[in-house]
């Protein structure tokens, strides 16, 4: 079984990001790292490939040829990677991203595509289903576990109250909920092996994509305004004079928590 995992390389969330004044989008200069939320999909794919046999291929896009995050996922154990890198990708919106990824995924001919539910820098959460629609494949969202059973996958799909058991024929697209597996830390041997793993770079022309469909020109989504997150209000300090527990209970009742 060939499992493709869509991964995104994003600015390190541990460092303070800044927005481009003109485009109101996140500046993506400098080193990019593997989005943490994608590490779960990579781990799940590696576990599936270990148990069911098969290989894991990564698919990513970036305007500037960045490979750092892909190297991390290759060091975790994926066999190869496809990076769509083209200056024309700058400003591509969610649907444009899905078009590019779907085209790149087609070239890999996977049996199963895993994605995160959303990226940590964009948070649109729409790309997985858009990819499925573009490929005309079924999709399952919010997987907490996946097992391969012949020509179908059995998915435990997380819901607010528990989980649904869903079966879906392959090929299909499954988005993986963050935190459901423990992503492995790249080992020293994995890191050294990643150096020589195939990482194929493609342009949009290689994929036969019309430049007008992507980038700023193709974006149908526009960020019209951005605002600072309001500062958190200071909490109330309750000094214990023997009745602190009552005050806390009253407060919780007022909040309708208890």
């Amino acid at each position, binding site marked *: 079984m060939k499992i493709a995992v869509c991964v995104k390389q994003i600015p390190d969330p541990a460092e*303070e990001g800044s927005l481009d004044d003109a485009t109101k989008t996140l500046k993506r200069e400098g080193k990019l790292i593997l989005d943490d939320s994608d590490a779960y999909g990579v781990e799940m794919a590696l576990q599936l490939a270990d148990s069911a046999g098969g290989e894991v291929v990564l698919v990513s896009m970036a305007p500037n040829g960045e490979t750092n995050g892909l190297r991390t996922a290759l060091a975790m154990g994926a066999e190869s990677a496809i990076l769509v890198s083209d200056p024309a990708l700058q400003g591509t919106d969610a649907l444009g991203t899905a078009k590019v990824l779907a085209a790149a995924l087609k070239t890999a001919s996977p049996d199963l595509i895993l994605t995160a539910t959303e990226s940590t820098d964009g948070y649109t959460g729409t790309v997985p289903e858009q990819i499925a629609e573009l490929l005309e494949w079924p999709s399952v969202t919010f997987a907490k576990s996946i097992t391969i059973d012949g020509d179908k996958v059995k998915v435990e799909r997380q819901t607010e109250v528990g989980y649904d058991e869903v079966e879906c024929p392959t090929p299909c697209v499954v988005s993986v909920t963050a935190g459901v597996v423990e992503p492995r*830390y790249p080992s020293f041997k994995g890191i050294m092996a990643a150096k020589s793993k195939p990482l194929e770079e493609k342009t949009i022309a290689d994929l036969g994509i019309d430049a007008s469909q992507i980038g700023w020109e193709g974006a149908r989504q526009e960020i019209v305004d951005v605002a600072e997150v309001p500062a958190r209000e200071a909490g109330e300090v309750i000094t214990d004079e023997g009745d602190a527990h009552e005050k806390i209970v009253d407060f919780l009742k007022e909040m309708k928590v208890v």
Partner: protein
Amino acid sequence: MPPNTQDTDLLDIDDILSEEEILLRDSVRGFVEDKILPNIASWYEAGRFELDLVKDLANLGIFGMTLDGYGGGGARARAYGIALRELEAGDSGLRSFVSVQSSLTMNGIYMFGSEEQKNEWLPKMASGDALGCFGLTEPDAGSNPAAMKTNAVQKGGDWEINGVKTWITNGSISDVALVWAQTEETNSTGGIRGFLVPTDSKGFSATDISEKASMRASITSEISLNGVLVPDEFRLPEATGLKAALSCLSEARFGICFGAVGAARSCLETAIDYSQTREVFAKPLAALALTQDKLVNMATLYSNAGLVAMHLAALKESGKATPAHISYGKRNNVAAAREIAREARSVLGANGISLAYPPIRHMANLESVYTYEGTHEIHTLVLGQKLTGHSAF
């Protein structure tokens, strides 16, 4: 917002690392941040070493990382140093565990063992399926190991070993102990020989030293060998004389040069972070000149120690590192880390004595590191001899 490494290291030393070394650094650092830091204070307080960590460390590929073959990773010295540096930013006990498993025991077997011994022990030690310890120090023989009383006497084809070893990291959890003992063998380098003693051998026992105020998240044992019989095939054939044991120590000391820098980073980052959020006289502690003086002194010691470690790695990789070079690094870097830990503790004021913050833990740990693997004083004598030609031992 806590400072990133670039802010803490005034010389941006990690800028010279390769892409792979940075990936390794980030992988080990991520492991420490996720698995060690949230738990280490409670493990430390409880005096517990978490055995579940063994598999995690093996999966990172750290055991036998520099060995060629036998499950080793074939890493260069600097990469191994970086891994140990990041582990000790978690806790010196964690780094000590790896130093004993990897630098002392696996390396000892790799350098001095027979092909059979290497095949028997190294792959399963690399995968964490077997643990090892290193028995050199005795209750009455520390800095002068040549005075060891543990002895091995040939009885037919076997060796009978008797003696006591103490301050043995990993002693009670090990599957094999590399025990150094006096024999009646004679050659120019003396009669000390190394034996691979399975810890389930009759007459072998290990008792943990529990009343410790340092290295509490690490297992330290006393080992008794009462008429332990091992076949001659368990003797390390290439280890003739004390020099063999000392060359294992050189490997471990190299790792300590890097490890100490990790402990120092943890303390320095904590001090900077704390000084920016703690207010005194209506301004951040960090805005006081006295605090800045402390922080700059700490940061200078830290970056200098980092440079020493990198230089030692370069010497080691080019085959030029001498025991005196390693003594310089161990002596300088541990003393620097110890000083940084103490100063960080003072920046944190009363909170500095709480295990909720790392400096007091590192400070207590570094007292052990200051003394083990060649005391600070012994390394001073090594360097004194190097400069003057006079041995003051």
